[in-house]
């Protein structure tokens, strides 16, 4: 049995306490350890993605206990792509945190960062619903610490809201898990997939309630309207590198919906038929609309980006709510794009803050490094709003194409296209107010000039933008891969048999009888 699959969880879990214990007072050593850890994570997760690329489902049984009773970690195409995305994103965000000095403004940034990565990686890799809950809690408790990193009243207040909202979400998650366990007697996802099909058609009340509760929990994580209220304040007030890392956290919710509602409660399952399709698509369309209107209404650049995240999550959820192979393939492509674009925009927002001192959408005199920041903002905004030629445009086309044959196609097309227009106006207004009009204002000779952001900060943001460009150039290959991923998701027999039929230590036939 290969132990590689568990490494993305174990490596940060060991590194984080090591950073706290061994390098507590040495920011330089912390940085070296943290960056080394993340680079190693990229190597490991690339290996896993390579291994899963041909459709192999790799199973790891913790303590060698067989599946329905033991805890399993499963690496298929979808989860390996998500862990690779997390690792790549975390490298650039970490470089930015180091380049901008954010990691020095409070204690234990790097340790919390590693714990956060551990939670995210675990949530993507686990094959067990209760373990998903535990990893959600790991990533949340690390995110609470990161969210209030460097302190400040506004940030602490936003932190209280964020923590309380997520505590309620966790409670709801436990209620859902209890209901599922009461109905089926298992929490292993592959085992559940088999057991829910055996439920009697007359006794589906419990399992239907459980499946709705579960989608509510994941919708909270994915910030689907009307469960998005935690997101704008917390993402806007969080330190910029943390907000950029949080760009993957909303995707954890989207991933969980894809995983659970293709494997455990697939759309053709009679027990829960029509439950999520009926509600999820309208909610997703409303999130898309509200997010983009929020972009137009925002008075500060950080709120603007936070609403753009809600809008892009709406777009992802529209594609997921179609629950077709085309839709899921488009959603997965868009997840890659929107994670990178949102992270780049949060970091660019911080570049603006570093050189201007505030984020109000008002015109101020030109500042150091404005030309480069404006250029990066221009590229990232084009990507985020989905204008050609960047990946947002490709992703949106794929989603429109997937929605073309569905009953709500007119509504979907109308809302996606008009929301895009609104977001283009919102970003264009923000960009021209902050960057372009700056030339028309006389600089105040009394004012203390802010120093330009460091080269490493620019390199990190440039790296994210370069990833977006790569995602555009190789759109064909990436989309072909996400299509095979969707095929694997809609034919879960291989996943289920790998998880359930692999023998563990007590199920192995022994030669001698005890």
């Amino acid at each position, binding site marked *: 049995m290969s132990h590689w699959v568990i490494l993305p969880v174990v490596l940060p879990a060991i590194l984080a306490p090591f950073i706290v214990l061994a390098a507590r007072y040495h920011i330089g050593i912390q940085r070296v350890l943290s960056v080394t850890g993340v680079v190693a994570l990229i190597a490991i997760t690339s290996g896993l993605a390579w291994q899963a690329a041909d459709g192999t489902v790799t199973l790891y049984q913790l303590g060698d206990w067989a599946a329905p009773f033991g805890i399993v970690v499963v690496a298929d195409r979808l989860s390996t792509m998500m862990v690779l995305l997390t690792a790549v994103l975390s490298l650039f965000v970490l470089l930015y945190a180091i380049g901008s000095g954010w990691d020095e*403004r409070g204690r234990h940034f790097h340790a919390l960062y590693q714990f956060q990565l551990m939670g995210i990686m675990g949530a993507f890799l686990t094959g067990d619903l*209760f373990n998903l809950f*535990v990893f959600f*809690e790991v990533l*949340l*408790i690390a995110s*609470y610490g990161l969210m*209030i990193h*460097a*302190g*400040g*009243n*506004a*940030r*602490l*207040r936003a*932190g*209280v*809201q964020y*923590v*309380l909202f997520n*505590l*309620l979400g*966790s*409670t709801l998650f*436990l*209620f859902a*898990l*209890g*209901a599922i*366990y*009461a109905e089926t*007697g298992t929490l292993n996802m592959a085992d559940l997939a088999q057991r829910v099909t055996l439920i009697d058609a007359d006794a589906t009340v419990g399992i239907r309630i459980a499946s709705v509760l579960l989608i509510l929990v994941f919708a909270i994580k994915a910030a689907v309207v009307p469960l998005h209220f935690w997101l704008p*304040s917390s993402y806007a007030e969080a*330190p910029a590198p943390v907000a950029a890392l949080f760009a993957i956290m909303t995707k954890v919710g989207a991933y969980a919906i894809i995983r659970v509602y293709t494997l455990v409660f697939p759309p053709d399952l009679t027990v829960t038929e029509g439950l999520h399709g009926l509600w999820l698509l309208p909610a997703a369309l409303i999130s898309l609309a509200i997010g983009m209107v929020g972009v137009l209404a925002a*008075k500060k650049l950080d709120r603007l980006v936070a609403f753009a995240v809600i809008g892009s999550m709406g777009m992802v959820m529209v594609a997921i709510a179609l629950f077709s192979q085309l839709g899921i393939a488009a959603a997965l492509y868009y997840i890659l794009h929107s994670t990178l674009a949102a992270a780049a925009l949060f970091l660019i927002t911080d570049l603006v*803050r570093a050189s201007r*001192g*505030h*984020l*109000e959408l008002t015109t101020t005199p030109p500042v150091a490094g404005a030309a480069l920041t404006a250029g990066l903002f221009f590229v990232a905004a084009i990507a985020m709003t989905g204008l050609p030629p960047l990946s947002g445009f490709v992703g949106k086309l794929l989603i429109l194409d997937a929605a073309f044959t569905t009953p709500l196609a007119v509504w979907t097309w109308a809302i996606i296209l008009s929301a895009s227009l609104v977001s283009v106006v919102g970003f264009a207004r923000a960009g021209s107010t902050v960057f372009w009009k700056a030339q028309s204002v006389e600089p105040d000779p009394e004012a203390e000039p802010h120093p330009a952001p460091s080269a490493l900060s620019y390199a990190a943001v440039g790296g994210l933008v370069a990833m977006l460009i790569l995602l555009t150039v190789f759109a064909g290959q990436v989309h072909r891969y996400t299509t095979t991923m969707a095929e694997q998701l809609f034919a879960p027999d291989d996943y289920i048999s790998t998880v359930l039929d692999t023998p563990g230590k007590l199920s192995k036939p022994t030669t001698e009888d005890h």
Partner: protein
Amino acid sequence: MELLVASAIGILTAAGLYLVLRLRTFPVIMGVSLLTYAVNVFLFSSGRLKVGAPPILSDATNYTDPLPQALVLTAIVISFGMTAVVVMIALGSYLGANDDAVNDPKTDMEEPEDLI
């Protein structure tokens, strides 16, 4: 016993939800604690209510499901840790701003004072 457990879960949940909607940190944290108690009892009952049965397969006719107890234990530990974290953050927020309201202040849009 079913009635007792079910009504206990219901009352704890109702009281918790009421307190969560109070918009002051102390009642909200109390409410979240009540909700976690409710969910712990709920998890217990998900393995069916049975009295006087061992949680091991000693004889196959009379046993109780041991898994919910493990789940409850995990849930208790996690909710305990989370409550401690939220108390600390809420205390920091209260001492910093001299205000324990959970919702955003009305002047939220016009206070660029502590941007870091």
